[in-house]
């Protein structure tokens, strides 16, 4: 036990004192905050840029249709020829000219309308203008059928269905996605940690092999002790790094916000930008202001203690499983370039967990795929955490699934560590050629 402590201490200090580790630890928050500030700044700049469309409207079908939006404003031209209007648009530096000629009917007018721009128009503008025309055309046709302008406005009313759970709680839209994103954030953290610190464990094993100190060490301690000490020591260094990051990043962010006077709401449009680009792909529905209260309540109802507790359990078990595989890989090869072939199969389940998790848990947190992946031990640390914000029990993850997944994880952990330790024990003393999978399998029997 005492030896294990010594090993952990050495591994921790070796990692923490490493120059690149120190630089990474203190530079990353600055880079990260810098990026967020930059994004916020750019978003602000981007938002303030309005595109101006000049409208030469010779018909009277579209007299009240063009209302300025956040990104487009309109200037009406009157009593100009098309050529004059084009020239003035260019000389004023406006984005484009919308020419609506006078025709006999609404359809004919719409069909002969042209948008002139310098280059092919951006899709947002085109879509916006097309929507205006579509609406106007629909209104025109309905009017021909005898629908008044007021009735038309009524027809267009949007409708949202009210939803509720059986025990009478009102559901709000998008909460499943938000919950999955919160769980996914934890899952993503686990994945990053595994990839980064698993890699550190692997490199540290390779270093011991290449510096040929390994045999000196294992004539004093058991290979398993060394492997375990290495994994624990490295992860403690990692936790230290994460703690420093979280602390200093939030501090820096706070200071930066104060200094630059950037409204946090500007950021809420990209709530996960600092974490994960993948989350961005799954765009969140923008909650309306009057629902904010409800969202806050829902978020409050997320079982944070459970989530945090299971995060720790899944983190430890998942990390131990993966980093012992990493250690075994490090032991099997002589240098880092040889690791590629072995690393891919490890990263695969992690990536799968993230992708499948985000697609299936988003649409249905308790569907068969989500359940399957949250039970499978190599993906469960990530996928189960995405499901857990719904809680355990009737409306959330059934208790048996939660317990089964932990049980599977523990059994896998014991199995994998046992296997990895065998490969490690043989591998650290093997030099020379890169082993094949078949040879690794043979090592298990030595």
């Amino acid at each position, binding site marked *: 036990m005492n*030896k294990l402590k*010594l*090993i952990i201490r*050495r591994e921790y200090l*070796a990692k923490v004192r*490493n120059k690149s580790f120190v630089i990474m630890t203190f530079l990353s928050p600055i880079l990260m905050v810098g990026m967020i500030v930059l994004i916020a700044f750019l978003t602000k700049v981007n938002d303030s840029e309005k595109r101006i469309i000049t409208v030469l409207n010779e018909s009277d079908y579209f007299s009240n249709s063009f209302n300025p939006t956040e990104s487009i404003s309109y200037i009406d031209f009157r009593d100009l020829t098309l050529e004059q209007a084009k020239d003035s648009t260019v000389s004023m530096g406006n984005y484009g000219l919308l020419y609506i000629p006078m025709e006999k009917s609404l359809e004919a007018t719409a069909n002969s309308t042209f948008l002139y721009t310098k280059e092919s128009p951006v899709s947002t503008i085109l879509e916006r203008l097309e929507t205006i025309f579509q609406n106007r055309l629909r209104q025109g046709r309905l009017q021909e059928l005898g629908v008044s302008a007021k009735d038309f406005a009524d027809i267009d009313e949007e409708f949202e269905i009210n939803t509720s759970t059986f025990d009478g709680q009102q559901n709000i839209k998008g909460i499943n996605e938000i919950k999955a994103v919160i769980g996914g954030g934890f899952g993503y953290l686990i994945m990053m940690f595994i990839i980064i610190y698993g890699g550190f464990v692997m490199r540290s094993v390779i*270093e*011991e092999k290449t*510096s*040929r*100190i390994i*045999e*000196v*060490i*294992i*004539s*004093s*301690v*058991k*290979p398993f002790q060394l492997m375990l000490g290495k994994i624990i020591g490295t992860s403690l260094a990692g936790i230290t790094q994460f703690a420093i990051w979280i602390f200093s990043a939030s501090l820096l962010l706070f200071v930066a916000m104060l200094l630059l006077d950037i409204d946090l709401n500007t950021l809420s449009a990209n709530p996960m930008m600092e974490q994960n680009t993948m989350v961005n792909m799954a765009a969140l529905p923008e909650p309306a202001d009057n629902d904010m209260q409800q969202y806050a309540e829902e978020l409050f109802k997320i079982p944070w203690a459970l989530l945090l507790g299971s995060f720790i359990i899944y983190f430890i078990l998942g990390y131990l499983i993966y980093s012992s595989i990493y250690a075994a890989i490090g032991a099997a090869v002589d240098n880092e370039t040889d690791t590629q072939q072995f690393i891919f199969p490890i990263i695969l389940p992690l990536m799968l967990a993230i992708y499948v998790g985000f697609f299936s848990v988003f649409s249905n947190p308790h569907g068969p795929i989500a359940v399957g992946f949250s039970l499978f031990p190599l993906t469960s640390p990530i996928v189960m955490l995405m499901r857990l914000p719904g809680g355990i029990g009737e409306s959330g993850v059934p208790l048996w699934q939660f317990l089964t997944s932990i049980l599977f994880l523990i059994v896998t952990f014991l199995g994998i560590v046992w296997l990895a330790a065998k490969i490690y024990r043989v591998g650290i*003393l093997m*030099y020379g050629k890169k082993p094949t999978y078949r040879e690794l399998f*043979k090592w298990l*029997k*030595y």
Partner: protein
Amino acid sequence: MNHILVAENVSKKFGEHAALSNISLEIPENCIYGLLGPNGAGKTTLIRIINQITYPDTGGVMFDGQPLAPEHIATIGYLPEERGLYKSMKVGEQALYLAQLKGLSKAEAKKRLKYWFERLEIGDWWNKKIQELSKGMAQKIQFIVTVLHEPKLLIFDEPFSGFDPINANKIKDEILELKKNGTSIIFSTHRMESVEELCEYIALLHQSEKILDGKLSDIKKAYKNNVFRVGLNVNKDGEQVLAQIKSQFDISTHQYYKDENQLDFSLKLPSPDTAIALNMLTKNGTINHFEEVIPSANDIFIQTVNSKTK
């Protein structure tokens, strides 16, 4: 005689490949025991079994009268052939770490390190990193770390590699000193001259089997084959004498210096009895020297291994 280590029928296989087959050895206390053999003979595997890095498939090892157990690790010191140190770790810290892994307290380790650093003239390297050291210096530190916890049994695998002749001598003296203080030493090397110099006992492994072991002097005696190196100052024509000797005995190499009437040759006798040969030789001149050829460890090694190679 007490034995520090007794191996009984130790076998070890790696897959289909046999690394050790039924090896039995007895290593007496307080001696230097040479573990010899060509590359791949199984020496390293045997040493790793003694260090409990790997375990035998069958057979057992007794250490100091008890079955080999994890607690013995603290009383064994091992300098592997493939050795090294953490490159970016400070010398002192590293030595302390390795000593503590062998069960020394920090204070005790520090005290002993100071002593050894002075003894081997390592000086103020405590706070330097290994990568700043010369290879010889790093090897010295490695040696110190191996012996620091004052083990009962020391295992040296090619201890002199990486040393210049002066430092190699220094290390050799240290090894002899350790032996004098009661340590038992297993010594594995391919440098036969150091075997000759240091070892009292040897074992020769070949293709996973033990093909020879025992006291070096006994082995040498057993390997004598009644060959004598003779120098004769002849009192008549050398060619004639040579022909006469050849008619009675086997002569392998010979050299005749006519100007000095000197005849040098190797003589192989049918038995250890030298009386007839000497009698005959004295009649033909004056004997300058008559010396039995004792096979060197090197000869024994090559001869035995070649005769057993399948």
